[in-house]
């Protein structure tokens, strides 16, 4: 079923070589079958009117995207029940008691891949959801666990400002700040503490320089062996679609944990090489997941951690980061991720200027060097919603020229070229999340309240940027079951519109 917009205007293609994929966000794998109604998952039913099952719903969505020349999808999967995905059992207990992945979940993932294959969509990018940062209920391990500080150095020191109570989620290799915490470091005096605590619940303990060492280990972590068993099951299901060993589904990126911000939170580098839960399995996530990719003959260089672009407060502003005289602070998170993988420096630079919301300049004197070097990935995944944000709302300005979408896109994508040329010129550039082509009914997009023409301006900015002509995949963000904007209009299938009738705005060209 196609949902055509009321008017179509031919768009300029994305500069070749380019491909188009989409983000599906969370997929409810526990109920991915023909007997579960989409109404079991709230707004999912609104994304596929008339579908009688979750599986039929996704089949209709896949057909819609395939008709738009979409060749791949990224999807999240929870590991302990987050958004109805439960491959592991006994989460919250000691890792030795955790079991899985269960066969029903694995079979449902295989069905999902089979449906993609049948629809003609062959590329997938699985993304483990280790935590729940977007308001979807996920079972927590044990909340409010008292953390006993080490008696004396030299053991890993306690992070500065560590609260007396730390909250642990089973998928995270570190502790997080609980909502009930009223420490001045996390809930400013005179502010709405409940509001701040809710937001900060997902953030790890804040210690820009030493979080990797000083953040406490998670005694309720599910364990790397159990996580790797889930990874293995996903890759095996892809490899065995449509038949055993057919490799009909290509895993062209495995996003181990999305949007690692190791500039502000170096403890997140434990997702790359863990130093605190080493007894729970191979703590070198790069090596172990690359090994699994190799087992199924997928490109080992496509094991990745995505990064967000940083937008300045002022239109057209840019500056150089600590990572080099040709490296923009707009893409410092990409620099940091490749550094973490390749045994380089992460963390916040010392004496950076903090100019216009960017980490400009500074030196590495207090930055942290990772212990294990690996080769560079073959993919650079940057999440970019180019725009200038309204400081009073934290969202994009909803109209140009205030939002300056095209100008911001031209700059940030251009900045990626210098990054690629330095770290791996042959790496694919994945615009892993970006403006959708949606309408929340109030003349703004459903993600970030950007101008309605943000998607087409985004492409125009890319085509005008220095990186145009590099191999690129555009993958707009479309959260089908739970749009970021709760407006009724955002659930409408018409918002699953990235390239209707090959009229753009995301029109790929080889």
């Amino acid at each position, binding site marked *: 079923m196609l949902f055509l917009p009321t008017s179509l205007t031919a768009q300029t293609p994305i500069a070749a070589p380019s491909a188009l994929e989409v983000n599906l966000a969370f997929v409810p794998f526990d109920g991915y079958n023909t007997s579960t109604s989409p109404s079991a998952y709230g707004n999912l039913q609104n994304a596929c009117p008339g579908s009688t099952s979750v599986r039929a719903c996704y089949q209709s969505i896949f057909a819609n995207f395939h008709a738009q020349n979409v060749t791949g999808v990224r999807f999240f999967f929870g590991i302990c029940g987050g958004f109805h995905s439960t491959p592991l059992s006994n989460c919250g207990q000691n890792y030795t008691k955790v079991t899985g992945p269960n066969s029903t979940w694995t079979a449902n993932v295989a069905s999902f891949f089979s449906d993609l294959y049948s629809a003609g969509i062959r590329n997938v990018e699985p993304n483990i959801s280790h935590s729940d940062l977007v308001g979807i209920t996920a079972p927590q391990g044990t909340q409010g666990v008292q953390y006993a500080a080490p008696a004396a150095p030299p053991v890993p020191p306690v992070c500065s400002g560590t609260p007396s109570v730390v909250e642990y989620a089973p998928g995270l290799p570190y502790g997080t700040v609980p909502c009930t915490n009223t420490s001045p470091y996390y809930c400013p005096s005179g502010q709405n503490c409940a509001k701040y605590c809710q937001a*900060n619940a997902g953030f790890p303990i804040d210690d820009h320089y030493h979080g990797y060492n000083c953040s406490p280990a998670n005694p309720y972590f599910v364990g790397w062996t159990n996580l790797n068993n889930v990874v293995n099951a996903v890759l095996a299901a892809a490899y065995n679609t449509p038949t055993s060993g057919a490799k009909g589904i290509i895993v062209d990126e495995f996003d181990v944990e999305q949007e690692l911000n190791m500039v502000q939170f170096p403890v997140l580098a434990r997702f790359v090489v863990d130093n605190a839960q080493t007894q729970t399995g191979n703590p070198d996530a790069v090596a172990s997941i690359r090994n699994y990719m190799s087992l199924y003959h997928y490109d080992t260089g496509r094991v990745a951690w995505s990064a967000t672009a940083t937008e300045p407060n002022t239109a057209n502003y840019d500056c150089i980061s600590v990572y080099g005289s040709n490296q923009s602070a707009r893409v410092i998170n990409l620099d940091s991720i490749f550094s973490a993988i390749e045994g380089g420096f992460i963390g916040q630079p010392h004496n950076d200027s903090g100019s216009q919301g960017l980490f400009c300049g500074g030196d590495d004197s207090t930055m942290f060097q990772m212990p294990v070097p690996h080769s560079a990935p073959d993919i650079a995944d940057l999440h970019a919603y180019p725009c200038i944000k309204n400081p009073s709302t934290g969202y994009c300005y909803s109209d140009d020229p205030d939002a300056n979408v095209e100008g911001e896109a031209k700059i940030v994508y251009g900045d990626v070229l210098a990054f690629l040329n330095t770290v791996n010129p042959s790496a694919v550039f994945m615009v892993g999340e970006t403006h959708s082509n949606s309408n929340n009914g109030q003349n703004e997009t459903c993600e970030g309240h950007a101008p309605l023409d943000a998607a087409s301006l985004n492409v125009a900015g890319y085509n005008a940027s220095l990186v145009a002509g590099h191999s690129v995949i555009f993958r707009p963000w479309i959260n089908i079951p739970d749009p970021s904007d709760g407006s009724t209009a955002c659930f409408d299938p018409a918002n699953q519109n990235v390239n209707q009738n090959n009229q753009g705005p995301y029109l790929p060209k080889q």
Partner: protein
Amino acid sequence: MNLRFLSAILLAGAWSAIAQTGGISGTVTSAVDGSPVPGATVIYHRLVNFLPNTGSSTSNPQLAPGEVYFSTSSTTDAKGGHSVDGLPPGTYQVCINSPNLPFLDPCKWGEAPLAIVAPAQISLLNIAAAPGVYLQVTINDVQGLLPTSESGLLDFPHLTVGVYFGSGAFLAARRSSVGTGIQTYSMAVPTGVPLNLWLISRYVYLSDSAGNALATNGAKIPFTASAGTNSAFTINVTGSIPAAAQAAR
């Protein structure tokens, strides 16, 4: 515009800026005998609060209203005195880096001292630094297989030298000198506690001073430093790892 009026505005602005900042002052001394630690870099780093997640799918935290990143440093004088002013009010993490004496940075080996800075006030912060000894690692690279410099942070190290300690903490050593066929790494380490020297390279094979090959996926060499005596190791570079094997790591 009336220049007298403009001057008044500028003065008011300057006074406002001064009144809104504070400072930190105190000493850095030996935790053992109270002797001063001169020539140490004292780093002041302001901790920040973040805005709530706005619901957009990007997770870069935004600073809360009125928050600002700020870091600066000072150098201790002959009496170990340190002081800094012009700091935006807030809570500061304070670290020390003693390049000439083997004192341990409390931010890395202990719990970082904190100082609360209030407007127009100087906070007192005396730091008792724990003395250690130097770990000195000499790399014999007679074939010159290792680069002698890096062009920037994205020119990643071809050799990682550091220390594992406690329950998984890791600290890398910085290269302290480069000569013909020889490089040295050094760092201050605590005494009397078990440590592990860590060496790993994707590019070259390594052996210890007795000629025993070190594991290519990283070697841990246990040691315990003694007070008053630097811990010295000699490591040899024995050959290049083939390019295909480098890429596979």
